[in-house]
């Protein structure tokens, strides 16, 4: 369970950004979370609430956009989204491929603030 330490990093980051903007109130943090990031959405959401407690971010929302896993298919010569992380192969032609294009994201992309 490493989601709490990740939630604390997110809160810290959001606070820094808010400080840079004249201590603007943070209403929501928007996060992109890849399905191969090793972080569980539900665990992160409850950890976020805990991490916000007694900070200026208390009461703010964590909005998570889940990013599907996309691989590069060498046979079709183009990116393909895979539906299961237990089966790394092109959904169209079935060629196995380890080349990962998306799915490891763990990034804060935007803040909803009130100045």
């Amino acid at each position, binding site marked *: *369970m*490493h989601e709490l*330490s*990740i939630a604390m*990093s*997110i809160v810290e*980051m959001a606070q820094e*950004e808010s400080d840079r*903007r004249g201590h603007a109130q943070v*209403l929501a943090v*928007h*996060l992109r979370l890849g399905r*191969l*990031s*090793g*972080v569980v959405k539900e665990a992160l959401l409850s950890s976020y609430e805990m991490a916000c407690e007694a900070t200026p971010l208390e009461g703010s929302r964590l909005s998570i956009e889940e990013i599907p896993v996309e691989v590069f298919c060498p046979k079709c010569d183009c990116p393909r989204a895979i539906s299961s*992380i*237990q*089966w*790394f*192969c092109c959904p169209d032609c079935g060629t*196995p*491929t*380890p080349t*990962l294009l998306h799915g490891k994201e*763990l*990034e*804060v*992309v*935007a*803040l*909803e*603030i*009130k*100045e």
Partner: protein
Amino acid sequence: MTTEPRLVEVRRNVLKQNDVIARALRERFREAGVLAVSLVSSPGSGKTAFLEKTLTLLHPCYRVAALVGDLATENDAARLARSQAPVKQILTGTVCHLEAAMIQNALDGWDLTQLDFLFIENVGNLVCPSSYDLGEDLRFVLLSVTEGEDKPLKYPTIFNSADVAVITKSDLAAAVEFDEAAALRNIQAVRPGMEVFKISAKTGEGMAEYLEYLEHRRTCSRATIAASK
């Protein structure tokens, strides 16, 4: 006066701090000419026995050292020290994985140029370590024959984050009716093209092929460094 809420773009990688330290470590390993190998697996899959055997077999010919992570006790460091190689225990307390900063701190005062191989044994956990880059050149994921062939399908993220899979405790395979073909199929499903070794730290089966691979990887990485200078 308050204004309406607005959305501001930020774009910050949450694990950036870890990634920056990991990159610096990787560069440090490269400069020193040491091959850094990390081991991840579930608790009890034989990481320490495998590492002890590795250190013992490499020690006469190469300069080797190991860092070993555990929540508590120095037992693993004491076991590994029997190999005569320098070993340091990293106690993580309640933290369920190693982070790059822990490696950096543990290496404080070490002259890496005096090493050929550095092994890093992660905390026994198939979930959390997958998110943290430690700056290693190679990540090995271990799977013992007693755990079941579907481990890769249950923990695809960690298998995907690793470079090499090692099937351990092969001496017990027949006793537990281990289905090797199924295990190999599952490994290839979550990480196509992954190199796999099957070993027994107890009988020594498969250790020669695996050590040959390690030596080969070290030679390749040194050749790349030499070419870039």
